């Protein structure tokens, strides 16, 4: 008698699709990891901040030293971000549109702040501008304060946040090539006209994205700023430094209050970034570095 087992229908699945169990496991693992290491701590920050009620929270962030720290943080970001926009656009332009000797070196150089510890970046400025350095006596004689003053904090922040704009724009500009610029030039546009009317509109969303990331980092930078700031309350303390000082004084409530404000700024930045992505996903480079 013949074997009458019906052959089971073949499971048709596209080559890149995993079995449902694998998919669920991966998604759960990703979410689990993120909740444990990112989401829970973030929630904790806000809970701790509001432990003594909204009045205490408000008092902690409107205390003069806290206000000074907030002002300084915003000031530093307001200087460092535009500077890095100019440097970043210039560097990305040079790398994406021209061929020149030392291009690979320049790209490596742009990544340097990512690979060097921020503390080292801070120390470099101490060595460069400190009283024992070559520049130190001259600066002192001319009454220019760099270290333990706002200029030093700005410099350290610029150093640490340099790659964000450039890194965002390089792949985008490389992908776009230069044919639109060539078209503009052949139609009689000057270099500046070409930049403002053709290049900039083409990179605007990528640029905005880079600016947001750069801004988030500029406000949150701790290591490099800590080394050059000198921790002078009400003068050279940025928000992250202020948070640390409060924390070290066991003033947890105030520390977390300011921390929640900083985290809130970061979340707001992230929200903006997401909105941009949703709205203009087509204009951003598909091969993003972050």
């Amino acid at each position: 008698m013949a074997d009458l087992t019906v052959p089971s229908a073949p499971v048709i699945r596209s080559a890149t699709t995993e079995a449902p169990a694998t998919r669920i496991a991966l998604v759960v693992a990703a979410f689990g990891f993120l909740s444990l290491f990112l989401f829970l701590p973030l929630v904790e920050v806000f809970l701790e901040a509001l432990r003594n009620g909204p009045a205490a929270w408000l008092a902690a962030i409107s205390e003069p030293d806290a206000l000074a720290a907030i002002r300084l943080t915003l000031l530093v970001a307001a200087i460092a971000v535009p500077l890095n926009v100019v440097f970043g656009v210039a560097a990305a332009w040079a790398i994406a549109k021209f061929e020149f000797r030392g291009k690979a070196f320049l790209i490596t150089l742009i990544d340097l702040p990512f690979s060097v510890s921020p503390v080292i970046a801070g120390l470099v400025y101490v060595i460069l501008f400190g009283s024992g350095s070559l520049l130190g006596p001259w600066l002192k004689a001319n009454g220019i304060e760099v270290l333990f003053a706002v200029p030093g904090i700005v410099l350290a922040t610029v150093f640490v946040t340099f790659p964000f704009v450039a890194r965002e724009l390089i792949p985008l500009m490389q992908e776009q090539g230069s044919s639109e610029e060539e078209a503009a030039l052949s139609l009689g546009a000057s270099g500046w006209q070409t930049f403002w009317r053709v290049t900039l509109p083409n990179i605007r969303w990528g640029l905005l994205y880079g600016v947001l990331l750069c801004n988030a980092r500029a406000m949150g930078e701790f290591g490099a700023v800590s080394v050059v700031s000198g921790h002078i309350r009400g003068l050279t303390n940025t928000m992250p430094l202020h948070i640390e000082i409060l924390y070290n004084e066991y003033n947890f409530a105030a520390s977390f209050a300011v921390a929640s404000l900083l985290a809130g700024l970061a979340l707001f930045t992230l929200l903006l970034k997401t909105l941009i992505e949703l709205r203009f996903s087509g204009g951003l480079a598909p091969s993003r570095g972050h």
Partner: protein
Amino acid sequence: MDLRIKNVRKDFDLTPALHDVSLDIASGELVALVGPSGSGKTTLLRLIAGLEQPNAGTVYFGQDDASRLSVQDRQVGFVFQHYALFKHMTVLQNVGFGLTVRPRGKRPTAREINERARSLIELVQLAGFEDRYPSQLSGGQRQRVALARAMAIEPKVLLLDEPFGALDAQVRKDLRRWLRELHDVTGHTTVFVTHDQEEAMELADRVVVMSRGRIEQVGAPDAIYDTPASAFVHRFIGESVELPVYIEGGMIRLDGIAIPLSAADEPDGPAALVFRPYDVAIDEVDRATYPGIAATVVASRWHGRGRRLELAVGAGGHSMEIDLPPDVAPPVDSTLSVWPTRWTLYRPSGASLSHPTPAAAASMVSPIQQMAVAQ
């Protein structure tokens, strides 16, 4: 505006892209630069536009040395292969761009720019599409916007880089005819680059065939087709059959066997025997009765207007394809006697057949015979 290109050389990273190229283009002419990829045709076009600078030589616009003019000052209308339309501008803004960037003194009023752009959009048959963005247009429509944009600046010369390269066959054909008509109406001096020899032959007043950074031949399409100056041109323009032969005492030998074509007064040495697939006669009777080239039929295909035979020829079994009228149908594996009725011999000069120098190009690969053999 007539163009003169004099002894232009261009190197990219030490690799020469153009060697000592000279070319004159008359005012109002429609010229095609045709050649395989890497032949330097696009480089030459970009040099004319000023998008590249030559390492040596000069480009003249009329009497002016264009090397002294920047891209902006050359007033060339350049149409890019992938259109390069400004993505964030509407069709109207794209077409008007060249006028809006003019310095204040020379800039037409916003109204004039608008009118001008609209009339050009009408000329390229895109009325009604003024407010669309490039992403909302088809390939052929984008190409026409690019053309209108280039014409808006009243160019002295219109330069088109592979203008139909990215379009499908039917759109290509329509646009080709349309461009020819447009050229006849507007009369711009026009140079376009293409790798499609058919396109070049159909569209251009004069065709410039390029290979390996040199101009191989310049001429009217029929002249180039009928009297190719080199084996390369013969091969590149239209179909051709090529057999490696050896000349010895005025006799042409294929694999050592003499064939019934004469090359009297030619010095001994190797040569290429080149002819069109349809310029052949065959004899189906035993090859002994007519001393043509011995051939065996490998395959026979019917292609609507006639029959294409794939043959193995000579002792070396060289593969060649010939076209026969529909009523002749020799069976596969049968032996034939074949001889070209119109043919050309090309001589390599020395060992530099594949890398000819331009000065010697005319003499070293010269057609020495172009004749009909009595049948």
